[in-house]
Each structure stands twice: as C-alpha cells, then as structure tokens.
C-alpha cells in the first residue's frame, strides 16, 4: 500500500521552518554553511566548539510560557515540529477526527540528558528521592510523543520507536503498518534528536574512523559533528489522500528494514543493506534504472569508506544516480538522520516541477546491524513559497 506525505515541517541549526532549512541547503551548495558556535549553550564542557545545533532556540517565544518550564529539549523540538506539520498539512483536528490521528516518533535514547540529570539529582541531593517530580516523565522514552498528543489533542495510536540512525526508516515501516491495518487515518511521523553535552560526547567518544570501512571492521555510523534536528511528516493512505484532493508532497512507495547479525564488526552490513535496497525496490515495483536520486545517511559516497556507498555500488553498479547527503549540512543528528534525508529530498523537489515524479531511494543503517531503505516519489509543491 502506498503512503502519501501531505505536509511536513523541519527544524535544524538554521532555525524553524522549511525556508530556513532550504536556505541552509543552498548556503552549503555555495560552500558557506558552517556549524554554529555552541559554547554558550551549556555550562558543561563540550567536545567541540561548534555543532550543528539550533543555538537560537527560544522555547517561550516559540511555544509560550504555559506548560513549558519542565519540558526537556527533545520534547520542545518535537512539539514545534508536530505543530508546524499539522499546520502545513492543514490537518483538521476536532472531536470527529482526533481519535484517528496518531503520532509516531523516532528516537535513540529518549532524552539521554533528562535520564542522566535525573540520576545525577538523585545521587547528589541530600536525600536521594529529592528529585523534581514534574521532570520525571521526561525520563521515559515516549515523553515527546505523549506530550505531542496532549498539546494537540491527538487520541489515535501514539508510538515511539527507538532506532538510532535507522529510527526514521523504522518509523515509516511502523506507520505504514498502522495505516495498512486501518488503525489510524493520519499519522504525524517524524524523528527528533536534541543537542546536549550528553549527545555530543556520545557522538564524539563512539566515533570510529569517521565512516565505516567497506570491510566493516572498525567503523561507526557516528561521523562528523553532532547535530540537532527534527522533522515531522503528515502521512496518510495515498489513495484516500488523492480522493480527498489533498496536496501530495511525496508518495512513499515502499520501505524495507532488516538486521545484519554481527553489526559493523560482523562484515555482513554491506550485503545486508544491499539486500534491503533490492527488497525495497522490488516492493515498490521499481527497477534500479528508474531511481533518480539516492539520499544517503553517510557523509562519504566512496564505496571504500562507506557501508552505504558500498551497498549502492552493489545494487546500481557504475550507473549510480544523483546523490544527496545531508549529513555534512545537518551533522550527525542520530535518530533524526532519516527524517532529515526525507526533508532534504522534499526540499530538492520543492518549487521545481521538472523534477516531479522522480523516484528516490532513502538509505540507512546502524553500527549494530540495523539496515533499511525506502522508495519515495517526490513532487514539487505548486505555488510554493520558493515559487
């Protein structure tokens, strides 16, 4: 069953909104994109002076003063992205529809900082139970999705998927099943990663050689500076969306995920990912020659350095399509990586009717053996703000 994306939102180091994001992409094309200075964000030491973080985030200016004091950063980012996706997609939320509108968000840890800070508070306070009760919900991994349901009154299926670098492809897979089974009519599907000292150090200390070698012996997906991003997409059943005359930004034709036992050290990641790409293409009924664009999660497109590039070479041979690789622009934004890949693709289509109907492949993987791919057909948005 085909899914339609009928609205979306994005936020990244350049700020909130599609215009800020496309501006960042264009600046990178001009060689002008730079990660902002993050030293003023936290009192804790950071591994690097810069990161692709949203340093100008002002919670109260964006979400208001009410009910925002205790929210963790990840939840704030998710709320902004969900709000803007609902708006962009023109989703009608009322008592007739709200129990059929759900949320599916991807994550890595939940908020690693919220969990760690709660432990720290318990360890350092005079009494170990003198923790802040209002912040306790931030330590459960489904906090952001649960808060989004509360803020926007969405009583349909509410799910959180922990997938690390593969989270958003997992989210698409999970969402596709919900819609196929008729458990919901509309899903806000997205992924979020916050920039905190905890995430930045995790990124820094687990980095291997920058990218995973094709041999997969000593690699890590965590390459480049830490990133912070969120993107949320309004997803519906494609046939119903068309019948209702909804504006379609993209059709998700298929998704496939799998697992390579042994992970990066096991040497089977590349072949497993290649198998996954073939499965996704077969499910979409699309031949490799019909793919116009590969939207890669790896920074490098060199098959000797990158698991992903190796798998693409295995499937596409020398006739490799155009390659979009947003990692250099948005940083290593972990769970949000796949969502930013899809956002990059929609930005590539936006305002460019000549690219209508181009079919693209989104690819992803994790150090531990997760592999995934999705086939997406994109459309420009007629009358878009980029005209």
């Amino acid at each position: 069953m085909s899914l339609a994306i009928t609205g979306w939102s994005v936020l990244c180091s350049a700020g909130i909104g599609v215009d800020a994001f496309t501006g960042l992409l264009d600046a990178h094309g001009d060689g002008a994109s730079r990660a902002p200075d993050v030293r003023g964000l936290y009192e804790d030491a950071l591994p690097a002076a810069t990161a692709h973080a949203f340093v100008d985030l002002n919670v109260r200016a964006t979400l208001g003063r009410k009910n925002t004091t205790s929210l963790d950063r990840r939840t704030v980012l998710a709320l902004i992205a969900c709000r803007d996706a609902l708006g962009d997609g023109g989703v009608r939320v009322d008592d007739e529809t709200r129990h059929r509108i759900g949320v599916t968000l991807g994550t890595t840890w939940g908020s690693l900082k919220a969990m760690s800070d709660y432990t720290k508070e318990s360890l350092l306070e005079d009494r170990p139970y003198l923790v802040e009760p209002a912040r306790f919900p931030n330590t459960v991994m489904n906090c952001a999705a649960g808060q989004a349901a509360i803020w926007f009154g969405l009583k349909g299926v509410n799910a959180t998927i922990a997938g690390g670098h593969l989270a958003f492809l997992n989210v698409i897979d999970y969402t596709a099943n919900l819609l196929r089974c008729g458990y919901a009519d509309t899903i806000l599907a997205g992924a979020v990663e916050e920039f905190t000292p905890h995430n930045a150090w995790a990124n820094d200390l687990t980095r291997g050689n920058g990218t995973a070698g094709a041999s997969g012996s000593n690699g890590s997906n965590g390459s480049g500076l830490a990133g912070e991003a969120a993107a949320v997409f309004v997803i519906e059943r494609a046939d119903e969306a068309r019948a209702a005359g909804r504006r379609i930004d993209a059709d998700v034709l298929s998704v496939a995920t799998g697992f390579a036992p042994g992970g990066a050290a096991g040497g089977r990641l590349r072949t497993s990912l290649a198998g996954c790409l073939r499965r996704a293409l077969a499910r979409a009924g699309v031949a490799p020659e019909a793919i116009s664009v590969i939207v890669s999660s790896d920074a490098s497109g060199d098959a000797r350095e990158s698991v992903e590039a190796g798998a693409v070479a295995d499937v596409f041979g020398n006739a490799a399509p155009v390659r979009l690789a947003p990692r250099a622009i948005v940083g290593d934004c972990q769970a949000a990586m796949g969502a930013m890949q899809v956002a990059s693709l929609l930005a590539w289509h936006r305002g460019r009717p000549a690219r209508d109907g181009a079919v693209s492949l989104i690819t992803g993987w994790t150090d531990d053996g997760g592999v995934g791919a999705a086939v997406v057909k994109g459309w420009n948005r007629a009358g878009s703000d980029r005209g």
Partner: protein
Amino acid sequence: MHRVVITGVGPVSSIGIGVSAFARSLRAGRSGISPIASFDTTGFPHVCAGEVHDFHPEQILRRLDARRWGRSTLFAAAAARLAVDDARLDVDAVGADRVGVVIGTTCGESQVIEALTKQILRDGFAAESPDLLRQSPGNRLAYGVSEEIGAAGESLTISTACAASNYALGYAYDRLAHGDFDVMIAGGADSVCQWVHAGFYRLGTLAKDSCAPFDRDRAGILTAEGGAALAIETLDHARARGARIYAEILGYGLNCDADHMVAPNASNIAACMRVAHRNAGVRPSDVDYICAHGTGTPANDSAELRAIREVFGDQPPPVSSIKSMLGHTMGAASGFGAIASALAITEGFLPPTVNWRAPDPDMTGIDVVPTHARDARIRVVQNDGFAFGGNNAIVVLAGGV
C-alpha cells in the same frame, strides 16, 4: 489474513526464569519482591523492588557475549532464547530472513546510563566509557535479540513505556497476519534503576514492601525488572512443523489519552478496550479473564476497574494483577501478562492477586482472584497495558486452536 499463534514463552523474572518456574510461582502466588541490591538505597525510605537476583545471562545465552550488552538487552535476549527453545524453533530452518524481532521498553538501558552518569560525575564527560556509550541506545534491545537468535528480518524496538510489550505483541501479530514474516519474537525488557525508583517515590506512587492491587489500602507500585518474550508464528507455520500451541492472538487495540503524562483516564481506557474487542472480533461477554494492568496505585486501579465496568457492565469476568507478585516490570510488564494469560489458557487456572486484604468500597462486585490461584476453564483473555504518555495497548488472546 493468517491466523497467529503463540508457540513459545520465555519469562526471565523475579518469580522464575523459564516457563516451568514462572508457572509454578503464578500458581503458588509467590512474591518476587526483595531488598534492592543493584544500587545503594541509603536515604530511601522504601528499599524494595522486584529484582532478578539469580539472573546469569551467560548460562542462557548462546551467541551474545554478555559483557558487551546492557542489562535490559540481556534480559530481552535471554527471554528470547528461552522462548525459542520452548517453541522448539530452529531459526535457520525457518530462514533467518523470515524471522523478525520486536521488543518494547520504558527506559531502555537505564543501568548503563546510570553507570555513565557516575563516570561523568566522577571524572567529567570526557571520561565516559566508549563501550558503555555503545551499549546505551534503546534500539540495542531488539538488536540483541536478533543477534542472539540469528534473525535477519526486521529488528524493532518500541519504546512506549509500560505498555510497550503489548505494542510489540500487536505489531508482531500484524506482521504475521499479513504474511510479512513466518515467525516473530515479541516481548519487552527493563532494569531496576535508581532514577526510576526515586521518581516513583517522589510522585508518591511507590509502595513500601508489598504491592496490593485493587486492595482498599493499596499504596502504589514496586519497581521491578525482567525480560518477557514470546515466540509467535502463523498458525499454518506452527501446524506444518507440529508445534505446541499455547494460544491464538485474536487482535489488539491502541489509543492515547492525550490529556496527562502520568494520570490514567478511565473513559479512554474503556475506549481502548472497545477498539481491542472490535479488532479481535469478540464481545465483552466472550472474555473469560482480564489480566489487568493493575499497578497497585490508587489511580490506576480505580480507572481500570471503572473502565471495565463501563465496558463489561455489572458482571465482569475475573480480573487479577500479576504485578502483585512481580512488581512493575515496566516495558516487560504486559509481556509477562501475555505469558501469564497464555499459561492461564493452556493450564486452566486464574493467576491470583496476592497481598489483597480488603475490598475497596468503590470496587465491590469484582472478582480479583484474591490470594490464591484458582482452576478455571478460560478461552478468551484480555491483557491490559497502560503507560506514561497515555499510551494504552490491549491484546486479546484465545485458546481452543
């Protein structure tokens, strides 16, 4: 659509590791609550939890190197190994690509994150152990299971807090019903940790040393841990290989309260029950037993029983809470509920609500199976799971396949 059946169960719990020990404890009404050993409880007024003290993962696991994985993943992987063995499944014979994994959790590798936090406090962020950081992501739970059993299909970690196992079971059911896989391993895992103990205490929902669901004087939950996994396959696949069948999964329902992060909502829980019944094709009168979420907090138990009254009327079926024995195992909780439900169907008994002393005047007329297990013929079971974030998930199981 394929019919979907449970053919193996793997409990790793404070009341027993493996199906025989777990079933014996359920029947005996044994409590798994004990003084906490995994962290220093000095200064805590309440110091008990449902820890699995005799968990030796290396004795159960065949492929995973226990030193390289966090405690929650080890619970999940050990439970999966037990479930696969109980089902007499040979993953290679099924085909690694035809076997998927879906695991639920609340806090993922919480003990790993606490260990990292101690490193940060002692020597700063730069001193964090890269090995522990690599063990910390939540998606490791499903990966550890896939790795242990040699599955190459989808490997998904669902982190919908304390309803997560039911989400996982439901998702496995869909995947099998639609023929996407032949076998799925589904379940959940979590570990006892200091921050969760502190948080529940601070919320005023932590009992002292005994969890007494539905009792007039119930004081709250006890934090607990463990891993619960079920081997699930299509009925055709199970029959073709002559597998023993515990129960059929008829369907499930999900919804979201969308009104409060921690307080349950009776009318939304009732709505979730109706969705589950509709999806499973059963009427309330078909349900012979409700394996309750039954955390033992005043708020949960009242809301759950109000919802049951609303859906089932004045004469609901017996309702019991195995959390009275296990404590609240978070992401594993509804997985243990599903295992208990499968055993209730297969062995013909109602698991008891232990520690129950006096009826709540607001909850009269409900049979909570107090204190002692009871023999009973059970065909259809409703297994409840509710969570922070208002994530409600209910799975309906049936015998007689």
